[in-house]
């Protein structure tokens, strides 16, 4: 436990001290390996609980809580950003009220509960997060080299990156809501530091936006804690296990649960909060990769998913499903109009998080299973794609999709990996599609969500295909050998690439041995310690197996996979007798290695092609006002669901 949470802190401080590129790299790699080993050890060991003793950890956490909030006040003042200031105050005042006026006793045992869902999360955080940290070693070196910085800030960057992993581990393990809140704030703090890392005006501005938006979530979190404590009498209500275990009647605590879901929505950048995650794109790419795949936004989904059994069967659940599905739809549409690679990825992340949240809201065993599958698949694919975009950026120094035209000829290896990453997001037989397939199947209980799923999944096809098309456009005769990548780039890339295939192919066994237990944890309200693990899993396991794996026609998927793997071999196997220039009404200049044609007065002119972005139909200016209005309404109804029950 100490390794998962405290080691990153210690390693981070060590990294701050080490100024040498190689020594620092070694520390990061070592930390990553220990984290990965530790998470695998946890997974093998199975669920357990833990309460740290010997030291007043609660006091330390309280002090650090105030430290973070005062820091927000400070940045609010120094940036003259009133929103940051206001929402820092709305957190610090209730927190002080809670601790000094109410004199709350916040002792909860066990302090940490590691169940199967937490295990899945910690595996994602530790493995994918660590790979991204390794990638960042070289990336930040190149990044600063390109910016011609005099004073290196790589140590600082890696410090926050590694610290982030520790905070996330703490977040998924924490059973005490107050501690969960603390780790929640630490991730917000880390994201502020990482987004503002380049210290440009835009970066600082966007980082401040991330803070205030997440602070509204933090405020809701505090209010939920106070409400629970006050109405449910004491610290027992602050135990997550107690909440989801059905110990308290759901209708009584629906308001705090709605507030906590709101908090999850802010962190998962659901509409109308999408702008902070889009603004976060100014940061160096490893930050985006980390925020999008394994940390930060996944914390938001984790919270909503974790609370699923509490709001099961209420109107709140249906509203969450519809709000998530609406985000999935609206952001997929917005992604079509984006021409910057990272913004497409960002919108696609928000969309997929919407899908996961919608699955949590649909709240059947099948949909919860879909949500967990999607979390896993999305983390791997999105992590890979961001690292790819980062690698491309350091080859062509641009994030624009139009600049990636014909990348297949310039950087074949990166292109192939990116192409697989993109294909894994929306095509059979890869995992994301399987997740989507189960989601659509599960969605029938909330038909409106199902309709949004259908529309969004089509829009998804459109924007991925458009991007892939730009990458793969080539001239007949230009070919280059594979480029060489630094091992700090290639190791994470290859690992994630292999991960996509392993998880995609092994979905049956992985689901049965591992994710099924996590699904059970969520669905059954996680009473693993109260009821005895074996009984519970045995009874509902047989049910779930029939529901999900029974419907997987697994063999055709393998058939499709084999075909998909064989297709690239055609590239080598097929040899046309002749490669020619494309048809240009007889005005081409004749060479197969140029893209010139004879324009007016027979002047040789290069022709250029561009992608379509449908700005008039789906541009941000057109869609945002509508979509945000609807999203805000849905949020209002969501909170309203909690209020009306009282």
């Amino acid at each position, binding site marked *: 436990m100490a390794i998962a949470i405290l080691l990153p802190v210690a390693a981070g401080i060590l990294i701050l001290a080490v100024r040498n590129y190689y020594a620092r790299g070694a520390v990061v790699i070592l930390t990553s390996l220990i984290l990965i080993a530790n998470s695998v050890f946890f997974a093998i060991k199975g669920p357990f609980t833990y309460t740290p003793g010997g030291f007043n950890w609660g006091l330390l956490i309280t002090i650090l809580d105030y430290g973070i909030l005062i820091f927000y006040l400070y940045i609010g003042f120094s940036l003259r950003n009133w929103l940051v200031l206001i929402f820092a105050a709305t957190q610090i005042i209730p927190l002080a009220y809670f601790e000094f006026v109410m004199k709350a006793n916040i002792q909860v045992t066990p302090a940490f509960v590691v169940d199967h869902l937490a295990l899945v999360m910690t595996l994602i955080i530790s493995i994918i997060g660590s790979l991204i940290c390794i990638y960042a070693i070289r990336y930040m070196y190149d990044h600063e080299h390109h910016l011609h910085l005099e004073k290196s800030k790589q140590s600082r960057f890696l410090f926050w990156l590694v610290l982030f992993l520790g905070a996330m581990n703490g977040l998924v393990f924490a059973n005490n809501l107050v501690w969960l809140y603390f780790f929640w704030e630490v991730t917000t703090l880390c994201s502020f530091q990482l987004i503002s890392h380049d210290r440009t005006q835009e970066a600082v501005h966007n980082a401040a936006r991330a803070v205030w938006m997440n602070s509204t979530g933090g405020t809701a979190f505090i209010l939920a804690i106070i409400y629970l404590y006050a109405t449910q009498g004491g610290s027992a209500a602050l135990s997550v296990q107690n909440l989801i275990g059905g110990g308290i009647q759901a209708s009584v605590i629906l308001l705090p649960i709605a507030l906590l879901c709101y908090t999850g929505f802010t962190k998962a950048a659901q509409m109308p909060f999408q702008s902070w995650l889009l603004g976060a794109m100014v940061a160096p790419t490893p930050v985006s990769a980390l925020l999008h795949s394994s940390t930060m936004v996944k914390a938001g989904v984790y919270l909503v998913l974790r609370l699923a059994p509490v709001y099961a069967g209420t109107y709140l659940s249906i509203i969450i499903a519809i709000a998530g599905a609406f985000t999935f739809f609206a952001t997929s549409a917005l992604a079509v109009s984006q021409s910057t690679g990272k913004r497409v990825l960002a919108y696609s992340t928000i969309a997929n998080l919407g899908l996961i949240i919608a699955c949590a809201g649909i709240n059947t065993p099948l949909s919860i299973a879909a949500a967990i599958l999607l979390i896993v698949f999305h983390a791997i694919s999105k992590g890979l794609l961001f690292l790819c975009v980062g690698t491309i950026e350091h080859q062509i120094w641009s994030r624009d999709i139009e600049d990636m035209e014909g990348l297949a000829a310039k950087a074949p290896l990166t292109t192939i990996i990116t192409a697989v990453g993109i294909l894994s997001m929306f095509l059979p037989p890869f995992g994301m599609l399987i997740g989507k397939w189960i989601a659509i199947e599960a969605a029938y209980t909330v038909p409106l969500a199902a*309709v949004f799923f259908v529309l969004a999944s089509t829009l998804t096809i459109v924007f991925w295909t458009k991007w892939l098309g730009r990458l793969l456009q080539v001239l007949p005769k230009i070919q280059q050998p594979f480029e060489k990548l630094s091992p700090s780039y290639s190791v994470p890339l290859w690992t994630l690439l292999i991960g996509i295939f392993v998880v995609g192919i092994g979905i049956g066994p992985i689901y049965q041995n591992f994710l099924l237990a996590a699904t059970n944890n969520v669905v059954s309200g996680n009473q693993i310690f109260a009821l005895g693990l074996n009984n519970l899993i045995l009874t509902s396991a047989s049910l779930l197996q029939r529901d999900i794996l029974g419907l997987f026609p697994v063999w055709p998927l393998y058939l499709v996979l084999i075909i998909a793997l064989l297709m690239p071999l055609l590239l080598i196997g097929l040899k046309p007798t002749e490669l020619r220039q494309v048809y240009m009404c007889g005005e081409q200049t004749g060479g197969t290695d140029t893209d010139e044609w004879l324009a007016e007065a027979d002047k040789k002119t290069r*022709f250029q092609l561009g992608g379509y972005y449908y700005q008039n139909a789906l541009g941000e200016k057109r869609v945002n006002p509508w979509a945000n209005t609807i999203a805000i309404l849905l949020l209002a109804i969501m909170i309203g669901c909690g209020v009306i029950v009282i």
Partner: protein
Amino acid sequence: MIEQFLVVMVTLVCAPLVGGLLFGIDRKITARMQGRFGPPVIQPFYDFFKLLGKEHIAVSKLQFVWIYGYLVFMIVSLLFLFMKSDFLLLVFLLGFASVSLVLGGFSTKSPYAHFGANRELMQILAYEPILLLLAIGIYAQNGSFLISEIFKQEKPLLFTLWPLFLAVLYVLTIKMRKSPFDIATSHHGHQEIVKGVTTEYSGPYFALFHLAEWYEIILLLGIIALFWTNPLWVGILIALAAFILELFIDNIAARMTVGWMVRLSWSVGLILGILNIAYIYYTKGVS
């Protein structure tokens, strides 16, 4: 096992034969409607073998990968239909087949292929939601996406899913590349000089495109036949009637713009589908 193997073999061999024949009939009827005599019914096969014998000329090596992808995934989705497997997965696979064709267009630096590819993409945007809604409609009716479940039902789907049936006819027009929706490339070269997304395919590779289209027409008519599976011959008759109807529509309509197609499909088509599902939902409740 042997039975399954037989189904696979029959699908692989018979589907293109029937498909090619249908296209021959299409050309004959179209010609008669236009007051021409028309080519012999087996003209598509003559064309196919002639194309196969041509030189292997290409403008990009990536092109073959994608045209093979188009063909192979079309066959796989047809197999899904004939083996009575999962309908939702079939729609996803059909989507991948179309995406392959789009990527084939994008993989060359040809303005015409790019126009065609972008339009094909918009066609996917127009028809894919309707097919997915059909899948949900089938699920709403039968409680399963499996095609084999449809065959077990006594009552034909057409009775409850007729609004979706109308919407699927719309899909058929788009997928058969008939006017007014022959946006990416038209089936007969009647309104265009440069053949859209297929511009850069020639010889044997173009023959593969035709072959894939033959499989595709069988798949589409098969999906329509699902609306009346008991007895199946009624469904097949409905499918053939739909086919003839498309030929009429083709000859009385002119090509419309991409935007018009997407708007029409996302308004009329989707509303039909959504109302249909909503109706089943409120009459049957959640299954």
